[in-house]
């Protein structure tokens, strides 16, 4: 079942398609999501985004009459996301299926819709109707509810520039020593299939680096290596001058905060409150609570809920709280903005700017160009394990 073709065929088998029909349909469905010729690839060797496209191919293969998609592009690179939306547009043009799509990427989703339903925090409808009408009638209300609007593009929402001053109450002083030094880093899970080929990267205190690149280009692997969760095949990783794998757990937790791509993989507590408090020193708790409040997870409302019963966007914010609450020197974030509406995005950008102002450095793997634009000042593009580009993010022109 591990081969991609088997997975796409699974739904067809269940509908009792003939083998001949399946043999024709499976490659077609894969080509439709930009994975032509992937039939015999192993799905465990695919990146998260590629797996997502395989899943979509599997759902599309039987040509369903109703398609329900819950943020299908959450982990996809821009090209992958556009490919998925191209497919959806084609389905819509052929009137082949009714599509129900839950999506934060308004710019891609709105042009596709014949009907838009906007919900508020409590799940009450704000407005429903043709996209044009909703925009004309309720743009202000949607904006107030923190919902992304289609015309927002990468224009940053109004926000103060990051404060570069040192927090006088912070015990940490902006040092001259790099937060993270990676040199000639090579890594592969299996011999002969390198994920990172020869990577050099230095993060100074106060730097905000966005790591971008196609699905499977090695972004997540780089983060895990920086945190000492993986052992390099060759080369060195130094976190504040030390090998992260040699650090004592308590020291590592003080130096680095991690927000994994899949929030559930990092959850340890049985309630949101426990999840936030786990391993925190008493003096860190009040900052953690305040951060939870800012990221719209007030303990009063969410404290007793199970982390596993939260929505995807809430889970993401909870793992952001746990990753940032120690105000670590290195903020390692993997897709920090998925599932977030505009308010979530703004609150996060603001919190990150403050931490970096205190002397932290941020290393964020992301597909979200808006986040790169709003929250980083250096953009590192990976491709197939190489650094393709390492450049400053253009400052916003007069706006």
């Amino acid at each position, binding site marked *: *079942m591990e081969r991609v073709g088997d997975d796409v065929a699974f739904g067809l088998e269940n509908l009792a398609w003939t*083998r001949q029909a399946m043999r024709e349909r499976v490659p077609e469905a894969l080509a439709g999501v930009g994975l032509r010729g992937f039939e015999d690839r192993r799905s465990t060797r695919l990146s998260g985004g590629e797996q997502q496209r395989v899943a979509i191919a599997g759902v599309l293969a039987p040509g369903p009459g109703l398609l329900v998609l819950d943020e299908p592009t959450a982990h996809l690179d821009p090209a992958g996301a556009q490919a998925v939306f191209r497919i959806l547009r084609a389905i819509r043009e052929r009137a082949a299926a009714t599509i129900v799509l839950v999506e934060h990427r308004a710019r891609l989703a709105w042009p596709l819709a014949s009907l838009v339903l906007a919900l508020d925090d409590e799940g009450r409808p704000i407005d429903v109707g043709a996209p044009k009408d909703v925009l004309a009638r309720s743009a202000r209300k949607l904006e107030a509810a923190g919902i992304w609007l289609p015309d927002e593009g990468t224009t940053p929402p109004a926000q103060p520039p990051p404060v570069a001053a040192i927090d006088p109450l912070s015990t940490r002083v902006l040092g001259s020593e790099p937060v993270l030094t990676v040199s000639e880093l090579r890594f592969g899970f299996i011999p002969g299939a390198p994920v990172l080929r020869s990577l050099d990267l230095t993060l100074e205190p106060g730097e905000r680096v966005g790591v971008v690149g196609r699905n499977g280009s090695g972004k997540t692997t780089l983060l895990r290596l920086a945190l000492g969760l993986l052992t390099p095949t060759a080369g060195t990783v130094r976190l504040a001058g030390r090998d992260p794998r040699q650090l004592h757990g308590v020291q590592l937790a003080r130096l680095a905060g991690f927000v994994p791509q899949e929030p559930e993989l990092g959850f*340890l507590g049985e309630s949101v409150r426990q999840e936030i408090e786990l*391993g925190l020193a008493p003096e860190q708790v009040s900052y953690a609570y305040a951060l939870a409040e800012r990221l719209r997870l007030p303990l009063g409302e969410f404290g007793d809920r199970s982390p596993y019963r939260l929505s995807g966007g809430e889970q993401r914010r909870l793992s952001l709280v746990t990753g940032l609450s120690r105000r670590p020197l290195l903020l390692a974030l993997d897709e920090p903005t998925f599932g977030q509406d505009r308010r979530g995005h703004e609150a996060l950008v603001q919190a990150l700017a403050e931490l970096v102002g205190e002397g932290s450095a941020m290393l964020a793997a992301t597909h979200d160009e808006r986040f790169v634009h709003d929250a980083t000042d250096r953009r590192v593009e990976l491709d197939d394990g190489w650094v393709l580009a390492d450049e400053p993010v253009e400052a916003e022109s007069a706006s």
Partner: protein
Amino acid sequence: MTVASLLVPDLDVTQRESVLGRTNPLVKLGISLAWLVGLGLTLDVRPPLILAVVAIVAGLQFGEIAPATMARRLGPLLLAAMTVALTNLLFSTHNADPAAQEVLRIGPLRITEEALVAAAGLAARVAAIVSVGTVFVLTTDATRLMDALVQQARVSPRFAYGLLAAYQAVPRLADDLAALRGARRLRGLRELHPSLLVGLLIRAIRHADQLSIAMDARGFGPGPRTTYRPIAWSRLDLVVGLSALALLIATLVVSR
């Protein structure tokens, strides 16, 4: 969410395309069972040892299992077999029997020939079982086993998919444990703690949930079903099956 990502990983292509890898999983299952039943017919220590060696050599030669992999998987199991044998040797009731032939005495510890023979027989038998089992697992693609069970042994798909999911419970637990330990380390907590068990349990349940949702969403149910991967008997199955039976009979006859 792909269904495949929630199920057991396949074999590497080297093992899958080897002679044993291409042999029908049901044939290998049949051979394993026949050998185990056959070994029950004798108390001799030689047949199980011979069959254990045959299984290992066949795994290396015809299954193209890397010797290091074989050693890593088989080592702990053989060690367990030796431990079982040693326990039986030391605590055998024969040792207390005054009529039994004494071979060794260390202080109060008396070891008799009868106990030695029984322990050696046991060790050989356990060694045969774990060797055959290890070679089976290392040369059998779980997906093919499932296909063969459904298409040739007429097992219900529901049961077969359940088996496929269960087959990988242990490796997945190992992955979950690594992820949990990493998460604990990054929060400055001790990596090993009793609460890891709760975390593993939660993840196992979440995983089963996700799998059933993914399968339901793709229309898996009791209705009629076709299959994408046809599986057929081949001449190879006949050759491997008959050779294995002949070997069993020869071993039993020789040791008589």
